[in-house]
């Protein structure tokens, strides 16, 4: 059976995205995980549970797993040696960059926005915001698939992985992009609203200035910025500069959480570009639910404290993250 190269997310690969990639990789051949760092026993055990047959750790005196260029070199080298059936990469910001560069280096077709992989490999892509499903194949080189792993249901299938050290000669170009320490004060407790990766906003449903503390606390728990709708800023529940709408700040976060926001036209114009939208509101007919990826019908004052407690519980017991993986 031919190998399928799976690029691990993070340095150890113990994230849900990697397990999802392994689940689809098993349909195409024997999954081999390429790590961005050294192999550790816990990570190896988890990857084995999801069917990894081989694990290639990053060579020890390498440029480190955070560097996309190093992972590109690893994948290209391994692809040339093993001629795999496909290369699977989780479609994040790093993932798309790596997929594109590997595609050029190997002169192989790259398919992005893949939501499912069938034997062949045939990729099912979601295009135009999910309004069309496209079935595509790669006809030249090793297929490079950037998979949106949140669409994959994770299924375990235990195997015993063999850890294989590889030698990769990293060219000087690998060090061209350097990570520097952010200047102090830039990544303080609350990031700036317009560039924040996570934004939590409150609207009329929050009810009072005192209750608006819930919005701030949830933003803090998720490492994001707090904002408010038109109503919330008008009533003085939050500062005017935290206004998220057409005339305030237009945000494009990775995650947008709307608490008690009905979703007026002007508000939606300011947050439509968010990658993932979650809304909590008591009115099931609220227009915000038409935009949201997950809508919760409930009272903000009851759901948010429970959510904060749940987040704290999960943070205190990181084991649970693996448990949710098996349940999913």
């Amino acid at each position: 059976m031919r190998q399928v190269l799976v690029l691990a997310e993070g340095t150890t690969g113990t994230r849900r995205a990697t397990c999802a990639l392994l689940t689809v990789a098993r349909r195409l051949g024997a999954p081999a995980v390429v790590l961005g760092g050294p192999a550790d026993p816990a990570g190896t055990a988890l990857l084995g549970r999801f069917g990894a047959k081989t694990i290639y750790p990053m060579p020890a005196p390498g440029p480190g797993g955070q560097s996309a260029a190093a992972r590109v070199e690893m994948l290209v080298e391994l692809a040339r040696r093993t001629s795999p059936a496909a290369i699977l990469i989780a479609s994040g910001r790093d993932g798309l960059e790596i997929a594109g560069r590997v595609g050029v280096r190997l002169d192989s077709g790259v398919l992005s926005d893949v939501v499912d992989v069938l034997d062949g490999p045939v990729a099912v892509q979601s295009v135009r915001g999910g309004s069309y499903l496209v079935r595509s194949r790669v006809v030249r080189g090793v297929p490079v698939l950037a998979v949106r792993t949140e669409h994959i249901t994770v299924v375990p299938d235990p195997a015993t992985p063999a850890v294989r050290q590889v030698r990769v000669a990293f060219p000087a170009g690998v060090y061209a992009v350097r990570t520097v320490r952010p200047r102090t004060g830039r990544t303080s407790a609350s990031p700036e609203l317009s560039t924040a990766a996570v934004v939590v906003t409150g609207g009329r449903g929050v009810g009072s200035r005192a209750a608006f503390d819930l919005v701030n606390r949830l933003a803090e728990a998720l490492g994001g910025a707090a904002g408010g709708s038109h109503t919330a800023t008008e009533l003085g529940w939050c500062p005017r500069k935290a206004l998220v709408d057409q005339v305030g700040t237009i945000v494009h976060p990775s995650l947008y959480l709307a608490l008690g926001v009905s979703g007026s036209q002007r508000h939606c114009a300011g947050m439509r570009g968010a990658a993932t939208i979650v809304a909590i509101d008591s009115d099931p007919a609220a227009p915000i639910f038409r935009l949201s990826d997950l809508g919760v019908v409930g009272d903000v004052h009851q759901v948010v404290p429970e959510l904060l407690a749940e987040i704290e519980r999960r943070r205190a017991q990181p084991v649970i993250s693996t448990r949710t993986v098996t349940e999913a």
Partner: protein
Amino acid sequence: MRVVVLVKQVPSEDVGLSFAPDLTVDRGGLPGVLSAGDRIAVDQGLRLAVRVRDVQITAVTMGPLSAREALRTALLLGADNAVHILDEALHGSDALATSLVLAAAAARLEFDLVLCGSASADSGMSAVPAMVAERLAVPGLHFADELLVRERKVEIHRDDGHGDLRVLVADLPAVVSITERCGEPRYPRYVSRVDAREKLISTWSLGTLSIDPAQVGRRGAACVVDAVTPHRPARPRALVEGDPTSTAVRLADFLAEREFL
């Protein structure tokens, strides 16, 4: 500093979109606009002017005759001149072929910085900026949420999509793709709107770039489309109801699934 901004025309709205018999997107007759990310890229190019000397901005696009409108918008926003790569053979190019053509154009123009928007408004092309950087053999900084350019180096801020923030630095020349988080473009001044009519748009063919037509278009595609099926839109999705505790757990599961926890 010579700045090349790669721009792209996208349909202005999703309604009424169809697929041609060869399964490429049929854009005939639909109004097209400069993609949101590219508007911001042009604007970021302009903002360099206060930090570095002699900024010259060239907007480059590849596409049918109607794509010229995207270049006009870029000129209106403040680009100095524009290049339109127009060739019959380009129809149906995939991401690899697109990057080949764009990289050849950037190399011919000579550049210190290549800027482009991160394609989120259209499908299938999100890896193109990384491919262009790889082909030009220069450092690539992608998905910049904040951009800072100096005489000799470029610095970006970005998160990995799950809230993990990093600051990356590379020497020029470099390729940078930016996200919409860099800030809304400023409204063009009246003077620049008038000036835009006088600016030059050059038209290049594949011959100008010495690219073999067999490498691009449908003939040179490394990927083929087998079928296209309409699908119900991804949104709206699930509505969760019930007692606060169970809905909170469901919410936390959702956030963990997408790796925000």
